């Protein structure tokens, strides 16, 4: 993990900027689990993506929180079998999106949004709040769906190298030039994160932590212009480097995917699991 310089006494914007840069750098470098030897890592990326797509569709279409929870348990089991630490995985998947969705869904718990059978009530600010069964069921289903979907996507990205994930797009008939462009953007995000961080440190070494509000705006504007110029120059240079090695407008990329018997079994297994969950839900 890369840590940017910690600034205990820095202001909110400064800390946010450095945290954002740190996030970009970590996100582009984080392939620790993707290169491990584990169950999901051993699967062919295309098949793995289709398996996860099946599970995602299942999570979205199931109407019972219990069966979605079963799918979530399967997701955790897959994470465990792939050497992804469960605590790390839970923190990574629950911190943002599911917690925010929980906040969004809170009003629907109450009778003034979802009418129905009351199961609990309380008074606050002189108002009586009634939680309804229908409201609670809806909220649980909503959060379960989001948590499971996010967990599946995070698990896929944690156990697959970014470059391979991008190349999987080719199999969905995304043009090679788009795949190449996205992978190059991804490649240079890190470079620009480092450049911006270095510029920031260089400015700080000359002007100190505190700068006048107007001066600060001036520095930020100059920084944006400077980074824009650098990115323009970089794009020209990279294009020259591509031309120099024979690029002629339509890129050809390395495709090295070869599905094994195990991959096909896994694909069939995912279809069976999804079908069983739908069947059990229908029988319920």
């Amino acid at each position, binding site marked *: 993990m890369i840590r940017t310089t910690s600034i205990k006494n820095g202001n909110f914007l400064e800390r946010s900027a450095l945290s954002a840069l740190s996030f970009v750098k970590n996100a582009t470098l984080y392939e620790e689990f993707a290169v491990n030897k584990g169950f999901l890592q051993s699967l062919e990326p295309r098949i793995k993506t289709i398996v996860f797509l099946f599970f995602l569709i299942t999570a979205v279409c199931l109407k019972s929180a219990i069966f979605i929870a079963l799918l979530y348990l399967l997701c955790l089991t897959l994470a465990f079998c792939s050497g992804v630490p469960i605590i790390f995985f839970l923190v990574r998947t629950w911190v943002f999106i599911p917690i925010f969705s929980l906040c969004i869904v809170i009003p629907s718990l109450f009778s003034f949004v979802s009418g129905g059978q009351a199961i609990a009530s309380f008074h606050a600010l002189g108002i009586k709040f009634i939680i309804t069964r229908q409201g609670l069921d809806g909220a649980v289903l909503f959060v379960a769906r989001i948590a499971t979907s996010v967990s599946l996507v995070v698990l896929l990205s944690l156990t697959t190298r970014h470059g391979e994930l991008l190349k999987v797009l080719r199999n969905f008939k995304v043009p090679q030039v788009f795949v190449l462009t996205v992978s190059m953007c991804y490649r*240079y995000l890190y470079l620009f994160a480092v450049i911006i961080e270095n510029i920031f440190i260089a400015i700080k070494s000359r002007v100190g932590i505190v700068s006048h509000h107007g001066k600060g705006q001036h520095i930020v504007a100059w920084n944006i212009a400077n980074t824009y110029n650098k990115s323009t120059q970089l794009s020209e240079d990279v294009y020259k480097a591509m031309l120099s090695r024979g690029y002629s407008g339509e890129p050809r990329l390395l495709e090295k995917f070869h599905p094994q018997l195990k991959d096909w079994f896994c694909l069939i297994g995912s279809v069976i699991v999804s079908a069983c969950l739908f069947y059990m839900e229908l029988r319920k």
Partner: protein
Amino acid sequence: MNDRIFKLTDVQYSYLGKYPALRDINMTIRKGEQVALIGSNGTGKSTLLHILDGLIFPDRGEVIALGQTLNEDYLSDEKNAHLFRSKVGLVFQNADIQLFCPSVKEDIVFGPLQLGFNDKIIADRLAQVLEILEIGHLLERIPHQLSIGEKRKVAIASVLAIDPEIIIFDEPTAGLDPLTVRHIVDFIVKAKQKGKTIITATHDLHIVGEIADTVYLFGKDKRIIKQGPAEKILEDKILLQENNLIHIHGHSHTGFTHAHPHLPTEKHSN
């Protein structure tokens, strides 16, 4: 002459039409020749290398490459471009520019893939360059995770995988530690022994004697000041000093301090 690879006549180039980068460049590079372009920063060496690689084209003058006039018209034909790119390879000064793929392996095979080499040739070339440059352990790494020296080696590998007859190096040893410099110089010497035509831009005079037979000295006015055999140019201390390539500096030996210009060709005496 059949063995003439490049012939430049009165070449001029300027950036944005107003900042001169090269003036009145005349040179001939023959097959199997090892050429060094030396000069201080901003003398137009890199610009000339880009012209030789057909990435930019002169404002005035003519460049003949492999018997053909090298211009936009010539390279806009896919067959010509394919032929030229498979014969001329450029290792850029900034390896981050050259390594734009998500993994080292993809960067190395990018050139052969674009040039339409078949899978077997690509696999063979990959195995060869990994062995020559001893970078097999880096194959699945992401380029931005590598050290500068490793990046430089991968950049060389990405050009070498095309197996070009002419290899152009832009400051191959800049910013590298002494051991990596040695590896790269050794590699250039081996390529020289294999009969490749090698053109190197550098201001590291310590390597010039090993990697080049002919030296072109570029001056601040963007012109070639002098050309000739490497040893003859490197002996001309006054000329090198006038062009910021050597400087007099004081240093200590056991017991005493003195000052003199350091040259790669001379032995250090007390």
